[in-house]
């Protein structure tokens, strides 16, 4: 098993003819991901990277029956692209785009709730179930199939965690970047729930950062559900200056809330193994499961 993605996932790329999308679609195909089609309005009927291109998601769904869509469209149009995918019945939507206005995302999320689609991101490297399918922009070669589930709010820090695990011979079941924005789709709690029921996953690593309350909610869930698998967590931003925006819309401490210290305390109380040195993510997980 694994969560969200496996060998049979049929993937659509929204905005496929763009530069970044073309590059990463190529990498996904090389990895063995079943990319079945692309969408770029106005370019329907063409072929790109050997794949059929459609004008609308609806047409692509009719012709190629994708169940996953990955979005590479610009920030201005991305929330609308999410809604188009949901409207066409796509079950899992992965939105890579960074910099979508917050109010646009509020509207998109309300729409998703009505349609019942799942969203990963925005502002995410995507999802990978190593050896099966990769939907996103992460470097494939650092991954290896295995039993550790990863849920992260950060991009390159996820690569770091994966790299450390793989270097120690620990593979991953699925690694999910949930995105660094204030409003995202699936959160720690949703994914912990999925990993709980996944037979391949033996332990879960959470990578959080300052801002918001997603880590606190995860702590509460782990405690209340008596979570059956070991969980380790690293939270970035202990040294971040308050009130400053550090790259992600998410990475900001406002009024003392959402600080790394506060989050770590809650996670610790929930029985989560805290990683205080980000170079020891892999080692901590190894110690935890052996």
């Amino acid at each position, binding site marked *: 098993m694994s969560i969200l993605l496996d060998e049979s996932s049929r993937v659509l790329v929204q905005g496929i003819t763009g530069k*970044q999308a073309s590059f990463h679609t190529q990498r996904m195909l090389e990895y063995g991901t079943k990319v079945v089609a692309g969408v770029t309005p106005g370019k329907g009927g063409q072929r790109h990277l050997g794949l059929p291109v459609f004008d609308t998601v609806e047409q692509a769904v009719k012709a190629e029956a994708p169940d996953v869509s990955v979005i590479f469209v610009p*920030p*201005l149009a991305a929330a609308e692209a999410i809604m188009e995918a949901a409207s066409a019945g796509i079950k899992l939507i992965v939105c890579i785009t*960074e*910099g*979508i*206005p*917050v*109010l646009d995302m*509020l*509207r998109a*999320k*309300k729409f998703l709730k009505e349609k019942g689609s799942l969203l990963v991101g925005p502002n995410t*490297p995507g999802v990978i179930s190593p050896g099966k399918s990769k939907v996103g*922009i*992460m*470097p494939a070669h*650092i991954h290896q199939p295995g039993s550790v589930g990863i849920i*992260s*709010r*950060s*991009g*390159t*820090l996820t*690569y*770091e965690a994966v*790299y*450390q695990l793989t270097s120690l011979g620990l593979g991953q079941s699925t690694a999910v970047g949930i995105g*660094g924005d*204030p*409003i995202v789709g699936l959160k720690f709690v949703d994914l912990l729930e999925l990993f709980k029921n996944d037979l391949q996953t033996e332990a879960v690593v959470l*990578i959080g*950062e*300052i801002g*918001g*309350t997603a880590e606190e909610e995860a702590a509460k869930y782990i405690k209340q559900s008596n979570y059956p698998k070991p969980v380790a967590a*690293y939270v*970035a*931003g*202990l*040294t*971040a*200056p*308050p*009130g*400053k*925006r*550090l*790259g*992600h*819309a998410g*990475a900001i401490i406002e*009024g*003392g*809330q959402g600080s790394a210290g506060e989050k770590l305390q809650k996670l610790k109380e929930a029985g989560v193994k805290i990683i*205080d*040195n*980000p*170079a*020891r993510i892999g080692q901590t997980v190894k110690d935890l499961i052996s």
Partner: protein
Amino acid sequence: MLIHEYQAKEFLKHLGIKIPEGGVAETPEKVREIAEELLVPVILKSQVLSGGRGKAGGIIIARNPEEAEASARNLFGKKLITGQSGNRGLTVRKILVEKTLKIKREIYLGLTVDRRNEGVAAIVSSEGGMEIEELARSNPELIKKEYLSPETGLLPFQGRNLAYFLELQNGAFNTFIEYLRKLTGFFLSHDLKLLEINPLILTEEDELVAADAKMDFDDCSLFRHPEIAALEDLSEASPQEIEARHFHLNYIKMDGHIGCLVNGAGLAMATMDIIKYFGGEPANFLDIGGGVTEEAVSKAFEILIEDPQVTSALINIFGGIVRCDLVAKGIVASARKVSLKKPVVVRMEGTNVAEGKKILEESGLPFHFVNNFEEAARLAVALSRT
């Protein structure tokens, strides 16, 4: 993006929300002039982009124009150190001079994007003027919230719920609902993240007046609101921060000695954290971002290495979208330009790492290569002390 109180109040005025009579001054003489027009007493409010101005001594009441001028003389050029300003403080360059109000009650009114409930929250309290986070902790019963959908905006009953909660009467009841309707409309049409009126004053004449105003706009939306983007005040940004912004680099100056150049905000924060973990102090936060060019990397390296406080640098790149060879080329170009003398620790992994290392090695410049994240941090800390 935060704007100044006086700028926010201009928006309120256009919306038809009452604000105190007054004006903005950049000299003590102008402060006196405004005070003379207003008839005394007046309140002098330092215009810096931070909360906690009162506690920092940035807000002063003056009984007459002479006193106003004298106080203004002290305030102009003063560095206000507030809870959010850092040790360097914020320089007072503008003062808002306003007529004082006859206060019957102080109300808190706030609109914000609530991440947890994924909606826009309208928040009120009968205890205005206080820190709302404090109040939420100590007396949650004194606060009431209504959640608005971005599609429907404020529904009439939600306005009534809040107005009844505040026990407003007669004219003030209707005025409050009207204000709230206009403010929520403005919030949604202009992509705000936060709008606060604290306090909203109920005067002895039963008028509602916005005595303070805070507006924070969503940076991601500024491309569709150029008139808002134009209000940005960069006078507090360091020259390095302004330069970095020009190259779309996310750079924030800090107080330590170890310069950091990293791709990705999460890894950049983790790099700062690990430096601190091994007893060092980061000199900056720097995320070069995913779409970075060679030229921008070059500029990034130049900014951090020329910082006089920096005694060593740590480059931590995990190539994904960003290619290690591109970063290496950018670094070599600027290291040659500045005739590099400070020790630089390089840790690279990911996309095109072999090519990247080769470029750095062949440059003949004094880079220290370390493969491991932890060793890289330890070395950068040790080198910062020699």
